[in-house]
């Protein structure tokens, strides 16, 4: 296991290297002089020259790349062209907001998806199975923005159960320490605020979690059906073990490996793909940050955003692979 883990981590080096080259290349793919494009046609030559210098564009390419790498290794992502603020400190709160939302929606997706999948397999070809799988099919196909607006309408405007936008009540602001509001409110020992934050998470969490929930449910069902055919399951049943224990204690672990892969892929794509949910729910996350950067042609922000999201995606995949090996020890890639 340890050997596998080390080998798998070493494999990351060329991947990260490749990512850094692609991200570095972005600014050089701009047709013409990037500084001129960024500043517009009306900029005076001195300003253009200053920006070229600030971006290091007046140096040879290999030097630019080495400088870029050196900065990255120091955790320096450069400055935003629009706000003139350091990107790393600007991006972190956005990243925390997205991570909080994503993890919440993944918990929702996994709890509901796995259980629905198991029940469907268990109650195969019953009304529950049919209903669950129709819901899963709809869940995979439903546009997030439509679902989000419908949730707002139903739970916010009609039932008045839940707030429709934001991370917390702006009239009662959270003291930000870690930028994870659930943690910050707990640190402050403010139970009321913690509950408010949870309430704010629910609607965007469901909107974002619906597609992964549906995918996980379908994957769990088919994987579970496969496992339930095995002899050891029949043996367990023959011993008189209740179905519940047969499934949750024996079959689940063996059917979980493929589900885990799906979870990993979904988690990675949620981190970058939350922009629609963030737009609808006024959630100040990294998707929105990157989207605004693209709109403003803020190239350093675009570069850093892509870099950070790629690294997160790679790391999530690494964790999934390691867990995979844990759930199915037969898998030890050579």
């Amino acid at each position: 296991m340890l050997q596998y883990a080390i080998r798998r981590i070493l494999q990351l080096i060329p991947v990260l290297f490749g990512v850094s080259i692609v991200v570095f290349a972005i600014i050089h793919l701009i047709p013409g002089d990037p500084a001129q494009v960024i500043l517009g046609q009306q900029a005076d030559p001195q300003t253009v020259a200053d920006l070229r210098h600030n971006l290091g564009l007046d140096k040879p390419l290999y030097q630019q790349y080495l400088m870029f790498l050196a900065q990255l290794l120091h955790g320096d992502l450069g400055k935003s062209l629009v706000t003139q603020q350091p990107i790393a400190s600007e991006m972190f709160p956005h990243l925390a907001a997205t991570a909080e939302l994503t993890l919440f929606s993944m918990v929702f997706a996994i709890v509901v998806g796995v259980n629905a999948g198991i029940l469907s397999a268990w109650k195969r070809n019953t009304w529950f199975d049919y209903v669950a799988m129709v819901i899963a099919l709809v869940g995979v196909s439903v546009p997030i923005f439509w679902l989000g607006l419908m949730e707002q309408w139903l739970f916010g405007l009609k039932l008045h159960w839940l707030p429709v936008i934001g991370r917390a009540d702006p009239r009662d602001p959270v003291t930000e320490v870690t930028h994870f509001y659930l943690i910050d409110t707990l640190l402050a020992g403010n139970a009321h605020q913690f509950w408010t934050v949870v309430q704010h998470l629910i609607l965007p969490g469901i909107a974002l979690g619906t597609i992964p929930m549906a995918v996980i449910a379908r994957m769990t069902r088919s994987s579970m059906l496969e496992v339930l055919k095995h002899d050891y399951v029949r043996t367990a049943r023959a011993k008189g073990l209740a179905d519940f224990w047969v499934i949750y204690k024996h079959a689940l672990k063996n059917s979980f490996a493929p589900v885990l892969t799906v979870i990993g892929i979904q988690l990675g794509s949620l981190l970058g793909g939350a922009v629609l949910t963030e737009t609808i729910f006024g959630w100040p996350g990294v998707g929105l940050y990157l989207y605004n950067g693209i709109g403003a042609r803020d190239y350093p922000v675009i570069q850093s955003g892509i870099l950070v999201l790629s690294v997160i995606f790679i790391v999530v995949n690494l964790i999934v692979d390691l867990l995979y090996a844990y759930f199915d020890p037969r898998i030890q890639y050579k």
Partner: protein
Amino acid sequence: MQMKWAACAAAVVALLAVTTGCGGGTTQPANGTAPTASSGQKTLIFGRGGDSVTLDPSGSTDDESNMVCEEIYDTLVTYKIGTPELQPDLATSWEPSKDGMSWTFHLQQGVKFSDGTPFNADAVVFNFQRWGDPNSPYHKGSSFAHYKSDLGGFYGSPGAIIKDVEKVDDYTVRIDLTHPFAPLPNILTQVAYSIASPEAIKKYNGDISHHPVGTGAFEFVSWTPNDKIVLKKNPNYRTPGLPKLDQLIFQVIPDNTARLNALRAGQIDLMEGLNPSDIQSVKSDPNLNLYVSPSNNVGYLAFNTQKKPFDDPRVRQAIAMCIDKKALIDAYYNGLADAGVTILPPKNWAYDSSIQDYPVDIAKAKQLLAEAGYPNGFDTELWAMPIPRPYMPQPQQIATAIQGDLAKIGIHAKIVTYDWATYLKKTDSGEHTMCLLGWSAGTWDPTTFMYTLLDSKNAVPPANNSAFYKNPAVDKLLEQALTVSDQNQRAELYKQAQKLVFQDEPYVPLVHSQPVRAGSKRVIGFTPQVTGGPQFTSVDLSN
């Protein structure tokens, strides 16, 4: 068997708990529908589509930055809310010298910045030097883009309008000019000319983009990017009893529909950026107010007057006679717009109301085309913007409607579009034949429309005069109007220019759209600003 049902029930309960988030059956409003009684604070939340870029007004060029700066800072002169009428702000009065070469501003006494430092002539001179004097140690931290373009450049540059700003006494300053410039008081109403605390500028070494300190009714508390900016009541504010609010929060909600949902749910109190299709439902909602402001913009169809066949005024007049402006306003503006007659909006003090617009008259239009040598019409291009603008919310649909109108007189126009940056670049350099565009003004001074869109000096790429209209008689009138200080005389000159332009019709002014905002009925005393100036100083919230 029992086990199975227990498991089933547990899973269902878990699912319900997760999906509704109310394991305990909470049904209380989870939002701030009621004003926060707990803290006893009056907090107004304004919902908007995007975040501010900077809170240094001298570098602010976008509406979202302006809107917040306006509450923190004051300018020397301002407009009476929602009208083109100038009124004192930090200056009590102002007058030009006889020869128009300088303006003297008398300042309010006893005003303090929110950091407690005094406002006086030194502060005004300090701010002007920071904006305009490249040798000032604090001429940094900002692009000073407005100053540069409004006032012809920084001190000493060839086109600079302001030569220097001098302190006359503690509460009087004199602005010396290189040539007479009548629009100055109007220009100084803009948020870019807000007076910031010199102590704060020194403390932060010129970079006040995140440390704004002004004399406005509110002072800065915090800024969470892409989320919210929080302001609180300025305890040093000059007018006792104001502001009435304790806190003012600008909340970013990018999606228009979601923002309206938040307003309806009581999470925000006011909003901008309504979808045109939501206007009716806001009007009929008993809990909401719809605020309609006078227009200070124009959406137009520009002809490239340097290209055939649009170099012939008869062709341009013929087209003006076939476009049904009222139908456009009903279909795409929910009736909330004025039909354009001249480039100036009807509320502008120089607007010439004696001009009667070309009536919709297909027969007359065909006759004019025949006289110009096009009895069977011609094929051409109609350029349309790719994105909605305040003056034109649905450019592609409007282009299609105009295309239909043009076909009635035999003109077959192909609709052409590019991405926004390319569109602007191509129209600025005159590659179009006919294009849709518009102009929103930051002040009520007519020069922002007339000079920008009609003067031949602006018909050189990158050109704001997208008709590339060149008329020496109009140029002369516009030039004169800049140097005369009397407003009535200026209005007369602009009216003469409008008459000449109307004959030539280089643009078909289509509409002047009226900006709309929506708010909860709890909000008392809100009148939206059309140009620069604070909106929330005397706004209150009821219970």
